[in-house]
Protein backbone atom coordinates (compact mmCIF):
# COMPACT_ATOMS: atom_id res chain seq x y z
CA UNK A 1 0.00 0.00 0.00
CA UNK A 2 2.66 2.42 1.08
CA UNK A 3 4.80 1.43 -1.86
CA UNK A 4 1.94 2.04 -4.27
CA UNK A 5 1.25 5.41 -2.69
CA UNK A 6 4.87 6.42 -2.97
CA UNK A 7 5.04 5.21 -6.53
CA UNK A 8 1.99 7.32 -7.39
CA UNK A 9 3.67 10.34 -5.85
CA UNK A 10 6.94 9.70 -7.63
CA UNK A 11 5.32 9.37 -11.01
CA UNK A 12 3.08 12.41 -10.75
CA UNK A 13 5.68 14.68 -9.16
CA UNK A 14 8.20 13.74 -11.82
CA UNK A 15 5.63 14.45 -14.51
CA UNK A 16 5.00 17.84 -12.91
CA UNK A 17 8.70 18.61 -12.99
CA UNK A 18 8.78 17.72 -16.68
CA UNK A 19 6.05 20.27 -17.35
CA UNK A 20 8.04 22.91 -15.52
CA UNK A 21 10.96 22.01 -17.72
CA UNK A 22 8.77 22.39 -20.80
CA UNK A 23 7.47 25.74 -19.60
CA UNK A 24 10.97 27.06 -19.05
CA UNK A 25 12.17 25.77 -22.36
CA UNK A 26 9.26 27.50 -24.04
CA UNK A 27 9.91 30.72 -22.19
CA UNK A 28 13.49 30.69 -23.35
CA UNK A 29 13.13 29.38 -26.87
CA UNK A 30 9.85 30.66 -28.29
CA UNK A 31 10.17 33.66 -30.53
CA UNK A 32 7.49 36.09 -29.37
CA UNK A 33 5.81 37.01 -26.09
CA UNK A 34 2.43 35.48 -26.88
CA UNK A 35 3.78 32.02 -27.58
CA UNK A 36 6.03 32.32 -24.54
CA UNK A 37 2.96 33.15 -22.51
CA UNK A 38 1.30 30.04 -23.82
CA UNK A 39 4.23 27.91 -22.68
CA UNK A 40 4.22 29.53 -19.27
CA UNK A 41 0.54 28.82 -18.77
CA UNK A 42 1.10 25.15 -19.45
CA UNK A 43 3.76 24.95 -16.80
CA UNK A 44 1.58 26.77 -14.32
CA UNK A 45 -1.52 24.71 -14.83
CA UNK A 46 -0.14 21.28 -15.28
CA UNK A 47 3.21 21.37 -13.50
CA UNK A 48 1.87 22.59 -10.19
CA UNK A 49 -1.37 20.63 -10.63
CA UNK A 50 0.43 17.32 -11.11
CA UNK A 51 2.69 17.97 -8.17
CA UNK A 52 -0.28 18.82 -5.95
CA UNK A 53 -2.13 15.67 -6.99
CA UNK A 54 1.02 13.66 -6.47
CA UNK A 55 1.43 15.02 -2.97
CA UNK A 56 -2.19 14.50 -1.94
CA UNK A 57 -1.65 10.89 -0.76
CA UNK A 58 1.27 12.09 1.37
CA UNK A 59 -0.83 14.68 3.20
CA UNK A 60 -1.98 13.65 6.64
CA UNK A 61 -5.60 14.56 7.17
CA UNK A 62 -8.31 16.18 5.12
CA UNK A 63 -7.35 19.72 6.14
CA UNK A 64 -3.79 19.35 4.91
CA UNK A 65 -5.03 17.97 1.61
CA UNK A 66 -7.51 20.81 1.35
CA UNK A 67 -4.73 23.34 1.80
CA UNK A 68 -2.85 21.76 -1.07
CA UNK A 69 -5.87 22.11 -3.31
CA UNK A 70 -6.36 25.71 -2.18
CA UNK A 71 -2.78 26.45 -3.14
CA UNK A 72 -3.39 25.04 -6.58
CA UNK A 73 -6.62 26.98 -7.04
CA UNK A 74 -4.96 30.20 -5.97
CA UNK A 75 -2.11 29.62 -8.38
CA UNK A 76 -4.66 28.96 -11.13
CA UNK A 77 -6.41 32.21 -10.40
CA UNK A 78 -3.20 34.21 -10.34
CA UNK A 79 -1.96 32.51 -13.47
CA UNK A 80 -5.18 33.11 -15.36
CA UNK A 81 -5.25 36.75 -14.37
CA UNK A 82 -1.63 37.21 -15.31
CA UNK A 83 -2.19 35.54 -18.63
CA UNK A 84 -5.07 37.79 -19.58
CA UNK A 85 -3.33 40.93 -18.46
CA UNK A 86 -0.02 40.12 -20.04
CA UNK A 87 -1.70 39.03 -23.26
CA UNK A 88 -3.61 42.28 -23.44
CA UNK A 89 -0.58 44.35 -22.59
CA UNK A 90 1.61 42.66 -25.17
CA UNK A 91 -1.16 42.89 -27.73
CA UNK A 92 -0.81 46.65 -27.64
CA UNK A 93 2.04 48.57 -29.13
CA UNK A 94 4.30 50.26 -26.57
Amino acid at each position, binding site marked *: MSVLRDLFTIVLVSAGAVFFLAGTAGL*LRFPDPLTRLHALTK*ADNLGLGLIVIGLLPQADGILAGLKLVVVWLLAQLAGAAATRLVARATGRPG
Partner: protein
Amino acid sequence: MAEFLIAMAGVVLAVVSVGLARVLWGPADADRLMAAQLLGTGSVAAVLLLAAAVGSPAIVDAAVILTLLAAFAIAAFVSSQFDSDATADLPRDQQQ
Protein backbone atom coordinates in the same frame (compact mmCIF):
# COMPACT_ATOMS: atom_id res chain seq x y z
CA MET B 1 10.85 9.31 -0.02
CA ALA B 2 11.92 12.51 1.68
CA GLU B 3 15.14 12.47 -0.30
CA PHE B 4 13.20 12.15 -3.52
CA LEU B 5 10.88 15.01 -2.67
CA ILE B 6 13.75 17.29 -1.73
CA ALA B 7 15.53 16.34 -4.93
CA MET B 8 12.43 17.16 -6.96
CA ALA B 9 12.14 20.48 -5.17
CA GLY B 10 15.69 21.17 -6.25
CA VAL B 11 14.97 20.10 -9.83
CA VAL B 12 11.88 22.28 -10.14
CA LEU B 13 13.76 25.25 -8.69
CA ALA B 14 16.75 24.70 -10.94
CA VAL B 15 14.51 24.49 -13.98
CA VAL B 16 12.53 27.61 -13.28
CA SER B 17 15.58 29.59 -12.25
CA VAL B 18 17.02 28.95 -15.69
CA GLY B 19 13.90 30.74 -16.86
CA LEU B 20 15.10 33.73 -14.91
CA ALA B 21 17.41 34.37 -17.81
CA ARG B 22 14.33 36.03 -19.31
CA VAL B 23 14.48 38.56 -16.52
CA LEU B 24 17.95 39.43 -17.73
CA TRP B 25 17.23 39.37 -21.42
CA GLY B 26 13.76 40.78 -21.54
CA PRO B 27 13.29 42.28 -24.05
CA ALA B 28 9.79 43.34 -23.04
CA ASP B 29 8.74 43.94 -19.46
CA ALA B 30 6.07 41.32 -20.05
CA ASP B 31 8.83 38.74 -20.47
CA ARG B 32 10.38 39.74 -17.19
CA LEU B 33 7.01 39.43 -15.52
CA MET B 34 6.39 35.99 -16.97
CA ALA B 35 9.78 34.77 -15.83
CA ALA B 36 9.11 36.05 -12.33
CA GLN B 37 5.71 34.39 -12.33
CA LEU B 38 7.23 31.10 -13.39
CA LEU B 39 9.70 31.41 -10.54
CA GLY B 40 6.78 32.11 -8.20
CA THR B 41 4.88 29.01 -9.27
CA GLY B 42 8.03 26.94 -9.15
CA SER B 43 8.79 28.16 -5.65
CA VAL B 44 5.32 27.25 -4.51
CA ALA B 45 5.79 23.78 -5.95
CA ALA B 46 9.17 23.51 -4.25
CA VAL B 47 7.72 24.62 -0.90
CA LEU B 48 4.94 22.04 -1.18
CA LEU B 49 7.51 19.36 -1.94
CA LEU B 50 9.64 20.44 1.01
CA ALA B 51 6.61 20.46 3.29
CA ALA B 52 5.80 16.92 2.29
CA ALA B 53 9.42 15.90 2.76
CA VAL B 54 9.64 17.33 6.26
CA GLY B 55 6.05 16.47 7.09
CA SER B 56 5.42 19.93 8.50
CA PRO B 57 1.98 21.47 8.01
CA ALA B 58 3.37 24.92 8.89
CA ILE B 59 5.40 24.88 5.71
CA VAL B 60 2.22 24.33 3.70
CA ASP B 61 0.99 27.55 5.27
CA ALA B 62 4.06 29.21 3.82
CA ALA B 63 3.05 27.89 0.41
CA VAL B 64 -0.46 29.31 0.80
CA ILE B 65 1.00 32.71 1.67
CA LEU B 66 3.49 32.58 -1.16
CA THR B 67 0.73 31.86 -3.64
CA LEU B 68 -1.45 34.64 -2.30
CA LEU B 69 1.41 37.07 -2.52
CA ALA B 70 2.40 35.86 -5.97
CA ALA B 71 -1.10 36.74 -7.11
CA PHE B 72 -0.81 40.05 -5.31
CA ALA B 73 2.54 40.78 -6.90
CA ILE B 74 1.12 40.07 -10.34
CA ALA B 75 -1.75 42.43 -9.72
CA ALA B 76 0.75 45.05 -8.56
CA PHE B 77 2.90 44.52 -11.65
CA VAL B 78 -0.01 44.75 -13.96
CA SER B 79 -1.75 47.66 -12.38
CA SER B 80 1.43 49.67 -12.14
CA GLN B 81 3.30 48.79 -15.26
CA PHE B 82 1.14 48.05 -18.23
CA ASP B 83 -1.83 50.25 -17.64
CA SER B 84 0.31 53.26 -16.99
CA ASP B 85 2.01 52.80 -20.32
CA ALA B 86 -1.31 52.51 -22.05
CA THR B 87 -2.74 55.54 -20.32
CA ALA B 88 0.34 57.69 -20.50
CA ASP B 89 -1.49 60.21 -22.61
CA LEU B 90 -4.33 60.60 -20.13
CA PRO B 91 -4.06 63.42 -17.62
CA ARG B 92 -2.81 62.11 -14.31
CA ASP B 93 -1.90 64.18 -11.34
CA GLN B 94 1.20 62.13 -10.66
CA GLN B 95 2.62 62.71 -14.08
CA GLN B 96 2.70 66.44 -14.27
